Protein backbone atom coordinates (compact mmCIF):
# COMPACT_ATOMS: atom_id res chain seq x y z
CA UNK A 1 0.00 0.00 0.00
CA UNK A 2 0.94 3.63 -0.39
CA UNK A 3 3.18 5.18 2.27
CA UNK A 4 2.27 8.45 3.86
CA UNK A 5 5.33 10.24 2.58
CA UNK A 6 4.09 11.07 -0.90
CA UNK A 7 3.42 14.64 -1.87
CA UNK A 8 -0.20 13.78 -2.46
CA UNK A 9 -0.75 13.47 1.28
CA UNK A 10 -2.08 16.98 1.53
CA UNK A 11 -5.06 15.76 -0.43
CA UNK A 12 -5.45 13.05 2.17
CA UNK A 13 -5.82 15.68 4.89
CA UNK A 14 -8.59 17.38 2.97
CA UNK A 15 -10.46 14.13 3.12
CA UNK A 16 -10.70 14.12 6.88
CA UNK A 17 -13.36 15.56 9.08
CA UNK A 18 -16.68 14.43 10.37
CA UNK A 19 -19.89 15.72 8.87
CA UNK A 20 -22.42 17.29 11.20
CA UNK A 21 -25.84 17.82 9.65
CA UNK A 22 -27.73 21.04 10.44
CA UNK A 23 -31.47 21.12 10.89
CA UNK A 24 -32.85 24.34 9.42
CA UNK A 25 -36.30 24.08 7.81
CA UNK A 26 -36.63 25.14 4.22
CA UNK A 27 -38.91 28.12 4.79
CA UNK A 28 -36.46 29.69 7.22
CA UNK A 29 -33.51 29.14 4.91
CA UNK A 30 -35.48 30.62 2.03
CA UNK A 31 -36.29 33.69 4.11
CA UNK A 32 -32.62 34.20 4.94
CA UNK A 33 -31.76 34.03 1.26
CA UNK A 34 -34.51 36.46 0.34
CA UNK A 35 -33.12 38.96 2.84
CA UNK A 36 -29.66 38.84 1.33
CA UNK A 37 -30.48 38.63 -2.37
CA UNK A 38 -32.69 41.28 -3.96
CA UNK A 39 -34.98 40.20 -6.73
CA UNK A 40 -35.53 36.68 -5.45
CA UNK A 41 -38.95 35.23 -4.68
CA UNK A 42 -40.03 32.01 -3.08
CA UNK A 43 -43.21 30.00 -3.00
CA UNK A 44 -44.47 26.81 -1.46
CA UNK A 45 -45.42 24.14 -3.96
CA UNK A 46 -48.28 21.71 -4.04
CA UNK A 47 -46.09 18.82 -2.85
CA UNK A 48 -44.85 20.72 0.22
CA UNK A 49 -41.40 21.68 -1.02
CA UNK A 50 -40.02 25.20 -1.39
CA UNK A 51 -39.12 26.68 -4.75
CA UNK A 52 -37.09 29.83 -5.30
CA UNK A 53 -36.83 31.98 -8.40
CA UNK A 54 -33.67 34.05 -8.47
CA UNK A 55 -32.03 36.33 -11.05
CA UNK A 56 -29.20 34.59 -12.86
CA UNK A 57 -26.50 37.04 -11.79
CA UNK A 58 -26.94 36.28 -8.10
CA UNK A 59 -26.75 32.49 -8.31
CA UNK A 60 -23.34 32.37 -6.61
CA UNK A 61 -24.48 34.17 -3.48
CA UNK A 62 -27.70 32.15 -3.31
CA UNK A 63 -25.75 28.90 -3.40
CA UNK A 64 -23.27 29.96 -0.72
CA UNK A 65 -26.09 31.11 1.49
CA UNK A 66 -27.87 27.77 1.20
CA UNK A 67 -24.67 25.89 1.86
CA UNK A 68 -24.15 27.92 4.98
CA UNK A 69 -27.65 27.00 6.12
CA UNK A 70 -26.98 23.27 5.94
CA UNK A 71 -28.30 22.58 2.42
CA UNK A 72 -24.99 21.20 1.30
CA UNK A 73 -25.85 18.10 -0.66
CA UNK A 74 -25.95 19.18 -4.29
CA UNK A 75 -28.29 16.68 -5.89
CA UNK A 76 -28.47 17.67 -9.55
CA UNK A 77 -28.51 20.50 -12.07
CA UNK A 78 -31.15 20.36 -14.80
CA UNK A 79 -31.43 22.51 -17.89
CA UNK A 80 -34.80 22.87 -19.60
CA UNK A 81 -35.10 24.31 -23.10
CA UNK A 82 -38.11 26.65 -23.17
CA UNK A 83 -38.06 27.35 -26.85
CA UNK A 84 -41.39 29.20 -26.93
CA UNK A 85 -40.29 31.73 -24.29
CA UNK A 86 -36.82 31.88 -25.87
CA UNK A 87 -34.85 31.04 -22.76
CA UNK A 88 -33.17 28.22 -20.84
CA UNK A 89 -34.36 27.40 -17.35
CA UNK A 90 -31.68 26.14 -14.97
CA UNK A 91 -32.95 24.21 -11.94
CA UNK A 92 -30.59 23.56 -9.04
CA UNK A 93 -31.67 20.78 -6.67
CA UNK A 94 -30.40 20.95 -3.08
CA UNK A 95 -30.96 18.61 -0.14
CA UNK A 96 -30.31 18.96 3.55
CA UNK A 97 -29.50 15.85 5.57
CA UNK A 98 -30.45 17.58 8.79
CA UNK A 99 -33.80 19.04 7.79
CA UNK A 100 -34.61 16.23 5.33
CA UNK A 101 -36.08 18.57 2.74
CA UNK A 102 -35.49 19.28 -0.91
CA UNK A 103 -35.23 22.80 -2.31
CA UNK A 104 -35.54 23.87 -5.96
CA UNK A 105 -33.65 26.98 -7.09
CA UNK A 106 -34.76 28.10 -10.54
CA UNK A 107 -33.28 30.77 -12.74
CA UNK A 108 -33.63 31.82 -16.38
CA UNK A 109 -30.97 32.73 -18.91
CA UNK A 110 -31.49 33.96 -22.47
CA UNK A 111 -31.33 31.42 -25.26
CA UNK A 112 -29.07 33.54 -27.42
CA UNK A 113 -25.40 33.04 -26.35
CA UNK A 114 -26.30 31.43 -23.01
CA UNK A 115 -23.91 31.64 -20.09
CA UNK A 116 -24.19 31.60 -16.31
CA UNK A 117 -21.63 31.79 -13.53
CA UNK A 118 -20.31 28.43 -12.41
CA UNK A 119 -21.00 27.24 -8.85
CA UNK A 120 -17.99 24.92 -8.71
CA UNK A 121 -16.29 26.95 -5.99
CA UNK A 122 -19.25 26.45 -3.69
CA UNK A 123 -20.30 22.90 -4.65
CA UNK A 124 -17.60 20.73 -6.12
CA UNK A 125 -20.21 18.16 -7.19
CA UNK A 126 -21.53 20.51 -9.87
CA UNK A 127 -18.47 20.15 -12.07
CA UNK A 128 -19.71 17.12 -14.02
CA UNK A 129 -23.26 18.43 -14.39
CA UNK A 130 -22.01 21.67 -15.91
CA UNK A 131 -19.77 19.75 -18.25
CA UNK A 132 -22.68 17.71 -19.53
CA UNK A 133 -24.94 20.75 -19.98
CA UNK A 134 -22.24 22.53 -21.94
CA UNK A 135 -22.09 19.62 -24.31
CA UNK A 136 -25.78 18.87 -24.65
CA UNK A 137 -27.26 22.37 -24.55
CA UNK A 138 -24.41 24.73 -25.34
CA UNK A 139 -24.51 26.77 -22.11
CA UNK A 140 -21.20 28.26 -21.05
CA UNK A 141 -20.06 28.29 -17.41
CA UNK A 142 -17.19 30.74 -16.87
CA UNK A 143 -15.20 29.68 -13.83
CA UNK A 144 -15.29 25.95 -14.53
CA UNK A 145 -11.99 24.67 -15.96
CA UNK A 146 -13.20 21.18 -16.78
CA UNK A 147 -15.59 21.91 -19.65
CA UNK A 148 -14.03 19.33 -21.94
CA UNK A 149 -15.69 16.77 -24.17
CA UNK A 150 -17.76 14.38 -22.12
CA UNK A 151 -19.96 11.80 -23.82
CA UNK A 152 -20.24 12.65 -27.51
CA UNK A 153 -17.23 11.87 -29.61
CA UNK A 154 -16.42 13.63 -32.88
CA UNK A 155 -19.67 15.55 -32.79
CA UNK A 156 -19.77 18.55 -35.10
CA UNK A 157 -23.44 19.43 -35.11
CA UNK A 158 -25.61 21.62 -32.87
CA UNK A 159 -26.10 20.76 -29.19
CA UNK A 160 -28.39 17.73 -29.42
CA UNK A 161 -30.70 18.14 -26.45
CA UNK A 162 -32.12 21.44 -27.69
CA UNK A 163 -35.68 21.32 -28.93
CA UNK A 164 -34.82 22.55 -32.42
CA UNK A 165 -32.57 19.58 -33.09
CA UNK A 166 -34.76 17.02 -34.84
CA UNK A 167 -33.29 13.66 -33.96
CA UNK A 168 -35.70 11.71 -36.15
CA UNK A 169 -34.70 13.80 -39.17
CA UNK A 170 -31.02 13.27 -38.30
CA UNK A 171 -31.46 9.50 -38.07
CA UNK A 172 -33.34 9.36 -41.36
CA UNK A 173 -30.67 11.34 -43.16
CA UNK A 174 -27.74 9.40 -41.80
CA UNK A 175 -29.05 5.84 -41.77
CA UNK A 176 -31.56 3.90 -43.79
CA UNK A 177 -34.28 3.19 -41.27
CA UNK A 178 -37.81 2.36 -42.26
CA UNK A 179 -40.63 3.74 -40.14
CA UNK A 180 -43.13 0.96 -39.55
CA UNK A 181 -45.94 2.87 -37.90
CA UNK A 182 -46.00 6.60 -38.65
CA UNK A 183 -49.11 7.22 -36.53
CA UNK A 184 -47.15 6.71 -33.34
CA UNK A 185 -44.71 9.49 -34.02
CA UNK A 186 -44.76 13.11 -32.84
CA UNK A 187 -46.73 15.45 -35.09
CA UNK A 188 -43.82 17.34 -36.61
CA UNK A 189 -42.75 14.34 -38.64
CA UNK A 190 -42.54 15.19 -42.32
CA UNK A 191 -43.47 12.96 -45.21
CA UNK A 192 -40.07 12.59 -46.80
CA UNK A 193 -38.46 9.98 -44.62
CA UNK A 194 -41.27 7.60 -43.68
CA UNK A 195 -44.22 5.98 -45.29
Amino acid at each position, binding site marked *: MVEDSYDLTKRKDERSGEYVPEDIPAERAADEVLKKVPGAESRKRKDGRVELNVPSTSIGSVMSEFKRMGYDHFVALTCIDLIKEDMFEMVYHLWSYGART*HVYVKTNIPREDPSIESVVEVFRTAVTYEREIKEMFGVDFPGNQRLTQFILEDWEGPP*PMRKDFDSIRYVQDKFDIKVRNPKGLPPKWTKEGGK
Partner: protein
Amino acid sequence: MMDDFKVTEIIFGPQHPGIHGNFGTRLELRGDLVYRARMVPGYLHRAFEKLMEQRTWMQNVAIVPRICVPDPDVNEMAYSMAVENIMGLEVPDRANYIRTIILELSRISAHLMGLGGIGGAIGLYTLPMWTNGDRDYILDLFEELTGGRVYHIFIWPGGVRWDIPDNWPRKVNKVLDHIEARLPEYYSLFFESKVTDARLKGLARFDSRWAVDHGVTGPNLRATGLEVDIRRMEPYAAYEDIDFKVITRKEGDGLARTLVRWYEVRESIRIIRQAVEDMPSGEIRAKTPPPLAFMVPPGDHFARVESSKGEYGYYVVSKGGKFPYRVHVRGPSFTHGIDVLEQILPGNEISDVALITGTLDVCPPDIDR
Protein backbone atom coordinates in the same frame (compact mmCIF):
# COMPACT_ATOMS: atom_id res chain seq x y z
CA MET B 1 10.17 10.60 -5.21
CA MET B 2 7.58 9.88 -7.82
CA ASP B 3 9.47 11.94 -10.36
CA ASP B 4 12.23 9.33 -10.60
CA PHE B 5 9.97 6.76 -12.13
CA LYS B 6 9.23 6.25 -15.79
CA VAL B 7 6.14 8.01 -17.10
CA THR B 8 3.62 5.90 -19.03
CA GLU B 9 0.19 6.74 -20.27
CA ILE B 10 -2.27 3.92 -20.85
CA ILE B 11 -5.93 3.53 -21.58
CA PHE B 12 -7.53 1.09 -19.18
CA GLY B 13 -10.69 -0.32 -20.69
CA PRO B 14 -13.36 -0.17 -21.99
CA GLN B 15 -12.94 -3.86 -22.69
CA HIS B 16 -11.21 -5.31 -19.68
CA PRO B 17 -12.15 -8.20 -17.40
CA GLY B 18 -11.77 -6.03 -14.32
CA ILE B 19 -14.00 -3.15 -15.38
CA HIS B 20 -17.72 -3.26 -14.71
CA GLY B 21 -19.52 -2.26 -17.86
CA ASN B 22 -17.97 -0.31 -20.73
CA PHE B 23 -16.02 2.45 -19.11
CA GLY B 24 -12.60 3.70 -20.07
CA THR B 25 -9.94 5.34 -17.96
CA ARG B 26 -6.93 7.23 -19.20
CA LEU B 27 -4.18 6.77 -16.64
CA GLU B 28 -0.88 8.55 -16.37
CA LEU B 29 1.47 6.32 -14.44
CA ARG B 30 4.77 6.96 -12.77
CA GLY B 31 6.22 3.47 -12.35
CA ASP B 32 3.39 1.43 -10.88
CA LEU B 33 1.54 4.28 -9.25
CA VAL B 34 -1.23 6.35 -10.71
CA TYR B 35 -0.33 10.00 -10.98
CA ARG B 36 -3.44 11.26 -12.73
CA ALA B 37 -6.64 9.67 -13.98
CA ARG B 38 -9.17 10.92 -16.48
CA MET B 39 -12.39 9.04 -17.11
CA VAL B 40 -13.64 8.38 -20.62
CA PRO B 41 -17.39 7.75 -20.49
CA GLY B 42 -19.78 7.60 -23.41
CA TYR B 43 -19.64 4.04 -24.69
CA LEU B 44 -23.17 3.30 -23.53
CA HIS B 45 -24.87 6.51 -24.59
CA ARG B 46 -28.29 5.73 -25.98
CA ALA B 47 -29.88 9.22 -25.66
CA PHE B 48 -32.63 8.19 -23.25
CA GLU B 49 -33.51 11.71 -22.23
CA LYS B 50 -34.21 12.74 -25.79
CA LEU B 51 -36.06 9.50 -26.53
CA MET B 52 -38.37 9.98 -23.59
CA GLU B 53 -39.53 13.32 -24.99
CA GLN B 54 -40.91 11.54 -28.06
CA ARG B 55 -42.91 8.76 -26.47
CA THR B 56 -46.10 8.88 -24.46
CA TRP B 57 -46.15 8.65 -20.70
CA MET B 58 -46.98 4.96 -20.62
CA GLN B 59 -44.65 3.98 -23.46
CA ASN B 60 -41.76 5.39 -21.46
CA VAL B 61 -42.17 2.66 -18.85
CA ALA B 62 -40.90 0.13 -21.38
CA ILE B 63 -37.77 2.17 -22.09
CA VAL B 64 -36.84 3.28 -18.62
CA PRO B 65 -35.58 0.02 -16.98
CA ARG B 66 -32.89 -0.27 -19.60
CA ILE B 67 -30.92 2.57 -18.09
CA CYS B 68 -29.48 0.51 -15.23
CA VAL B 69 -28.81 -3.16 -15.80
CA PRO B 70 -28.17 -4.73 -12.37
CA ASP B 71 -30.96 -2.81 -10.63
CA PRO B 72 -33.65 -1.93 -13.16
CA ASP B 73 -36.68 -1.55 -10.91
CA VAL B 74 -35.52 1.67 -9.30
CA ASN B 75 -35.93 3.42 -12.64
CA GLU B 76 -39.53 2.33 -13.03
CA MET B 77 -40.22 3.23 -9.42
CA ALA B 78 -38.75 6.74 -9.53
CA TYR B 79 -40.42 7.55 -12.85
CA SER B 80 -43.79 6.30 -11.62
CA MET B 81 -43.44 8.21 -8.35
CA ALA B 82 -42.73 11.45 -10.19
CA VAL B 83 -45.68 11.03 -12.58
CA GLU B 84 -48.04 10.04 -9.77
CA ASN B 85 -47.07 13.08 -7.77
CA ILE B 86 -47.74 15.45 -10.65
CA MET B 87 -51.10 13.81 -11.36
CA GLY B 88 -52.09 13.49 -7.71
CA LEU B 89 -52.67 9.71 -7.89
CA GLU B 90 -52.98 7.66 -4.73
CA VAL B 91 -51.39 4.21 -4.95
CA PRO B 92 -53.29 1.43 -3.10
CA ASP B 93 -51.62 -0.39 -0.18
CA ARG B 94 -51.30 -3.75 -1.81
CA ALA B 95 -49.45 -2.21 -4.71
CA ASN B 96 -47.07 -0.50 -2.29
CA TYR B 97 -46.20 -3.79 -0.61
CA ILE B 98 -45.66 -5.55 -3.93
CA ARG B 99 -43.41 -2.68 -5.02
CA THR B 100 -41.42 -2.99 -1.80
CA ILE B 101 -40.84 -6.70 -2.33
CA ILE B 102 -39.71 -6.15 -5.92
CA LEU B 103 -37.34 -3.33 -4.96
CA GLU B 104 -35.74 -5.32 -2.17
CA LEU B 105 -35.31 -8.43 -4.31
CA SER B 106 -33.65 -6.25 -6.91
CA ARG B 107 -31.38 -4.80 -4.23
CA ILE B 108 -30.28 -8.27 -3.12
CA SER B 109 -29.48 -9.32 -6.67
CA ALA B 110 -27.55 -6.12 -7.36
CA HIS B 111 -25.54 -6.46 -4.15
CA LEU B 112 -24.72 -10.09 -4.91
CA MET B 113 -23.45 -9.00 -8.30
CA GLY B 114 -21.45 -6.16 -6.73
CA LEU B 115 -19.81 -8.48 -4.21
CA GLY B 116 -18.93 -10.80 -7.04
CA GLY B 117 -17.35 -7.93 -8.90
CA ILE B 118 -15.13 -7.08 -5.94
CA GLY B 119 -14.12 -10.71 -5.55
CA GLY B 120 -13.28 -10.93 -9.22
CA ALA B 121 -11.12 -7.82 -9.08
CA ILE B 122 -9.07 -9.38 -6.28
CA GLY B 123 -8.68 -12.64 -8.15
CA LEU B 124 -11.02 -14.78 -6.07
CA TYR B 125 -13.20 -16.05 -8.90
CA THR B 126 -15.14 -18.41 -6.69
CA LEU B 127 -17.12 -15.52 -5.27
CA PRO B 128 -18.63 -14.25 -8.55
CA MET B 129 -19.43 -17.81 -9.55
CA TRP B 130 -21.35 -18.39 -6.33
CA THR B 131 -23.15 -15.06 -6.19
CA ASN B 132 -24.24 -15.13 -9.81
CA GLY B 133 -25.51 -18.66 -9.31
CA ASP B 134 -27.61 -17.61 -6.35
CA ARG B 135 -28.80 -14.51 -8.17
CA ASP B 136 -30.35 -16.88 -10.71
CA TYR B 137 -32.96 -18.04 -8.19
CA ILE B 138 -34.05 -14.45 -7.73
CA LEU B 139 -34.32 -13.99 -11.49
CA ASP B 140 -36.54 -17.09 -11.61
CA LEU B 141 -38.78 -15.48 -9.00
CA PHE B 142 -39.03 -12.34 -11.09
CA GLU B 143 -39.93 -14.36 -14.11
CA GLU B 144 -42.80 -16.02 -12.35
CA LEU B 145 -44.19 -12.71 -11.20
CA THR B 146 -43.57 -10.27 -14.02
CA GLY B 147 -42.87 -12.29 -17.15
CA GLY B 148 -39.29 -11.21 -17.69
CA ARG B 149 -36.05 -12.08 -15.94
CA VAL B 150 -34.10 -8.86 -16.07
CA TYR B 151 -36.35 -6.07 -17.39
CA HIS B 152 -39.66 -6.34 -15.65
CA ILE B 153 -41.82 -3.43 -16.89
CA PHE B 154 -44.10 -4.11 -13.99
CA ILE B 155 -44.23 -0.95 -11.87
CA TRP B 156 -46.06 1.79 -13.74
CA PRO B 157 -47.91 4.99 -12.81
CA GLY B 158 -50.90 4.00 -10.70
CA GLY B 159 -49.69 0.76 -9.18
CA VAL B 160 -48.39 -2.51 -10.54
CA ARG B 161 -49.36 -4.42 -13.64
CA TRP B 162 -50.71 -7.80 -12.46
CA ASP B 163 -51.43 -9.49 -9.18
CA ILE B 164 -49.09 -12.02 -7.58
CA PRO B 165 -49.70 -15.73 -8.25
CA ASP B 166 -50.95 -17.84 -5.33
CA ASN B 167 -47.88 -19.97 -4.76
CA TRP B 168 -45.42 -17.09 -5.18
CA PRO B 169 -45.06 -16.05 -1.48
CA ARG B 170 -44.08 -19.59 -0.59
CA LYS B 171 -41.41 -19.62 -3.28
CA VAL B 172 -40.07 -16.27 -2.10
CA ASN B 173 -39.59 -17.64 1.40
CA LYS B 174 -37.81 -20.71 0.04
CA VAL B 175 -35.37 -18.65 -1.99
CA LEU B 176 -34.70 -16.39 1.00
CA ASP B 177 -34.00 -19.42 3.19
CA HIS B 178 -31.49 -20.62 0.64
CA ILE B 179 -29.69 -17.28 0.41
CA GLU B 180 -29.65 -16.86 4.16
CA ALA B 181 -27.97 -20.25 4.50
CA ARG B 182 -25.35 -19.22 1.95
CA LEU B 183 -24.42 -15.91 3.54
CA PRO B 184 -22.14 -17.39 6.25
CA GLU B 185 -20.36 -19.33 3.51
CA TYR B 186 -19.66 -16.08 1.65
CA TYR B 187 -18.40 -14.54 4.85
CA SER B 188 -15.96 -17.33 5.60
CA LEU B 189 -14.78 -17.44 2.00
CA PHE B 190 -14.19 -13.75 1.52
CA PHE B 191 -13.96 -11.83 4.76
CA GLU B 192 -11.98 -14.33 6.84
CA SER B 193 -9.15 -14.38 4.37
CA LYS B 194 -5.87 -12.58 4.88
CA VAL B 195 -5.70 -11.62 1.23
CA THR B 196 -8.90 -9.60 1.49
CA ASP B 197 -7.60 -7.78 4.54
CA ALA B 198 -4.34 -6.96 2.86
CA ARG B 199 -5.98 -5.60 -0.26
CA LEU B 200 -9.06 -3.86 1.03
CA LYS B 201 -8.06 -2.42 4.40
CA GLY B 202 -7.27 1.24 4.14
CA LEU B 203 -8.00 1.33 0.42
CA ALA B 204 -9.18 4.74 -0.86
CA ARG B 205 -10.28 6.03 2.48
CA PHE B 206 -12.42 9.13 2.81
CA ASP B 207 -14.37 10.71 5.62
CA SER B 208 -17.94 11.86 5.76
CA ARG B 209 -17.16 15.57 5.28
CA TRP B 210 -15.30 14.90 2.05
CA ALA B 211 -17.97 12.45 0.95
CA VAL B 212 -20.85 14.90 1.31
CA ASP B 213 -18.85 17.65 -0.38
CA HIS B 214 -18.26 15.45 -3.40
CA GLY B 215 -21.72 14.00 -3.81
CA VAL B 216 -21.18 10.47 -2.52
CA THR B 217 -24.43 8.72 -1.62
CA GLY B 218 -25.73 5.29 -0.74
CA PRO B 219 -23.73 2.48 0.89
CA ASN B 220 -20.49 4.39 0.23
CA LEU B 221 -21.69 7.22 2.45
CA ARG B 222 -23.00 4.87 5.11
CA ALA B 223 -19.58 3.25 5.30
CA THR B 224 -18.12 6.55 6.55
CA GLY B 225 -20.34 6.67 9.59
CA LEU B 226 -23.34 8.77 8.57
CA GLU B 227 -26.67 7.10 9.19
CA VAL B 228 -28.59 8.35 6.16
CA ASP B 229 -30.99 6.32 4.07
CA ILE B 230 -33.71 7.68 1.78
CA ARG B 231 -36.03 4.94 2.96
CA ARG B 232 -35.93 6.64 6.36
CA MET B 233 -35.57 10.28 5.36
CA GLU B 234 -38.29 10.47 2.71
CA PRO B 235 -40.26 7.20 2.92
CA TYR B 236 -41.91 5.82 -0.18
CA ALA B 237 -43.71 2.54 -0.99
CA ALA B 238 -44.36 0.59 2.23
CA TYR B 239 -41.18 1.46 4.14
CA GLU B 240 -42.96 3.44 6.81
CA ASP B 241 -44.68 0.34 8.16
CA ILE B 242 -41.70 -1.98 8.03
CA ASP B 243 -39.09 -2.26 10.73
CA PHE B 244 -35.49 -2.33 9.53
CA LYS B 245 -32.02 -1.17 10.54
CA VAL B 246 -29.77 1.24 8.65
CA ILE B 247 -26.32 -0.35 8.33
CA THR B 248 -23.29 1.88 8.96
CA ARG B 249 -19.58 1.32 9.50
CA LYS B 250 -17.03 3.81 10.77
CA GLU B 251 -13.85 3.27 8.82
CA GLY B 252 -14.69 4.59 5.37
CA ASP B 253 -12.30 2.39 3.41
CA GLY B 254 -12.82 -0.36 0.85
CA LEU B 255 -13.38 -3.10 3.42
CA ALA B 256 -16.09 -1.08 5.15
CA ARG B 257 -17.94 -0.48 1.88
CA THR B 258 -17.91 -4.18 1.08
CA LEU B 259 -19.07 -5.13 4.56
CA VAL B 260 -21.97 -2.68 4.38
CA ARG B 261 -23.19 -4.48 1.27
CA TRP B 262 -22.98 -7.89 2.88
CA TYR B 263 -24.96 -6.73 5.91
CA GLU B 264 -27.53 -5.00 3.70
CA VAL B 265 -28.34 -8.29 1.98
CA ARG B 266 -29.24 -9.73 5.37
CA GLU B 267 -31.35 -6.71 6.21
CA SER B 268 -33.20 -6.88 2.90
CA ILE B 269 -34.09 -10.51 3.57
CA ARG B 270 -35.74 -9.41 6.81
CA ILE B 271 -37.66 -6.65 5.03
CA ILE B 272 -39.02 -9.02 2.39
CA ARG B 273 -40.18 -11.55 4.97
CA GLN B 274 -42.09 -8.86 6.82
CA ALA B 275 -43.68 -7.53 3.63
CA VAL B 276 -44.78 -11.00 2.50
CA GLU B 277 -46.36 -11.70 5.84
CA ASP B 278 -48.17 -8.38 6.24
CA MET B 279 -49.42 -8.11 2.66
CA PRO B 280 -52.84 -6.42 2.67
CA SER B 281 -55.58 -7.29 0.25
CA GLY B 282 -57.21 -4.87 -2.14
CA GLU B 283 -56.69 -3.22 -5.48
CA ILE B 284 -53.39 -3.27 -7.31
CA ARG B 285 -53.91 -0.23 -9.53
CA ALA B 286 -55.40 3.20 -9.10
CA LYS B 287 -57.73 4.52 -11.75
CA THR B 288 -55.69 5.92 -14.62
CA PRO B 289 -56.61 7.25 -18.06
CA PRO B 290 -56.27 4.84 -21.02
CA PRO B 291 -52.69 4.40 -22.25
CA LEU B 292 -53.10 6.10 -25.61
CA ALA B 293 -54.88 9.14 -24.19
CA PHE B 294 -52.80 9.53 -21.04
CA MET B 295 -52.56 13.24 -20.25
CA VAL B 296 -50.69 14.70 -17.31
CA PRO B 297 -51.46 18.23 -16.02
CA PRO B 298 -48.64 20.81 -16.06
CA GLY B 299 -46.12 20.60 -13.22
CA ASP B 300 -42.77 19.16 -12.26
CA HIS B 301 -41.41 16.94 -9.52
CA PHE B 302 -38.17 15.35 -8.39
CA ALA B 303 -38.63 11.83 -7.05
CA ARG B 304 -35.80 9.94 -5.36
CA VAL B 305 -35.31 6.30 -4.51
CA GLU B 306 -32.62 4.47 -2.55
CA SER B 307 -31.06 2.13 -5.07
CA SER B 308 -28.34 -0.38 -4.32
CA LYS B 309 -25.74 2.06 -5.62
CA GLY B 310 -26.89 5.33 -4.13
CA GLU B 311 -29.45 8.04 -4.62
CA TYR B 312 -31.41 7.62 -7.82
CA GLY B 313 -33.55 10.55 -8.90
CA TYR B 314 -35.90 11.48 -11.73
CA TYR B 315 -36.91 15.07 -12.47
CA VAL B 316 -39.98 15.04 -14.70
CA VAL B 317 -41.34 18.25 -16.27
CA SER B 318 -44.77 18.25 -17.85
CA LYS B 319 -46.38 21.04 -19.83
CA GLY B 320 -49.70 19.17 -20.17
CA GLY B 321 -49.91 16.94 -23.20
CA LYS B 322 -49.18 13.50 -24.54
CA PHE B 323 -45.40 13.54 -24.19
CA PRO B 324 -43.16 14.59 -21.30
CA TYR B 325 -41.42 17.92 -21.83
CA ARG B 326 -38.17 17.02 -20.08
CA VAL B 327 -37.01 14.03 -18.06
CA HIS B 328 -33.68 14.28 -16.25
CA VAL B 329 -32.21 11.08 -14.84
CA ARG B 330 -29.84 11.53 -11.93
CA GLY B 331 -27.82 8.37 -11.50
CA PRO B 332 -25.60 7.72 -8.49
CA SER B 333 -22.60 6.83 -10.61
CA PHE B 334 -22.65 10.26 -12.22
CA THR B 335 -20.88 11.66 -9.19
CA HIS B 336 -19.09 8.50 -8.05
CA GLY B 337 -17.70 7.50 -11.38
CA ILE B 338 -16.23 10.72 -12.70
CA ASP B 339 -15.15 13.27 -10.12
CA VAL B 340 -14.74 11.09 -7.02
CA LEU B 341 -12.64 8.54 -8.89
CA GLU B 342 -10.47 11.19 -10.47
CA GLN B 343 -9.66 12.52 -7.03
CA ILE B 344 -9.02 9.31 -5.10
CA LEU B 345 -7.16 7.26 -7.69
CA PRO B 346 -3.85 9.19 -7.64
CA GLY B 347 -1.35 7.55 -5.32
CA ASN B 348 -2.72 4.04 -5.69
CA GLU B 349 -1.19 1.20 -7.61
CA ILE B 350 -2.48 0.24 -10.99
CA SER B 351 -3.66 -3.13 -9.74
CA ASP B 352 -6.07 -1.33 -7.44
CA VAL B 353 -7.81 0.76 -10.08
CA ALA B 354 -10.44 -1.87 -10.89
CA LEU B 355 -10.78 -2.72 -7.22
CA ILE B 356 -11.52 0.87 -6.17
CA THR B 357 -14.07 1.16 -8.97
CA GLY B 358 -15.65 -2.05 -7.72
CA THR B 359 -15.87 -1.02 -4.08
CA LEU B 360 -17.57 2.23 -5.09
CA ASP B 361 -19.98 0.14 -7.23
CA VAL B 362 -19.80 2.31 -10.31
CA CYS B 363 -22.37 1.35 -12.92
CA PRO B 364 -21.49 3.02 -16.25
CA PRO B 365 -24.96 2.96 -17.88
CA ASP B 366 -26.30 5.57 -15.51
CA ILE B 367 -23.43 7.93 -16.33
CA ASP B 368 -24.08 7.86 -20.05
CA ARG B 369 -27.79 7.06 -20.15
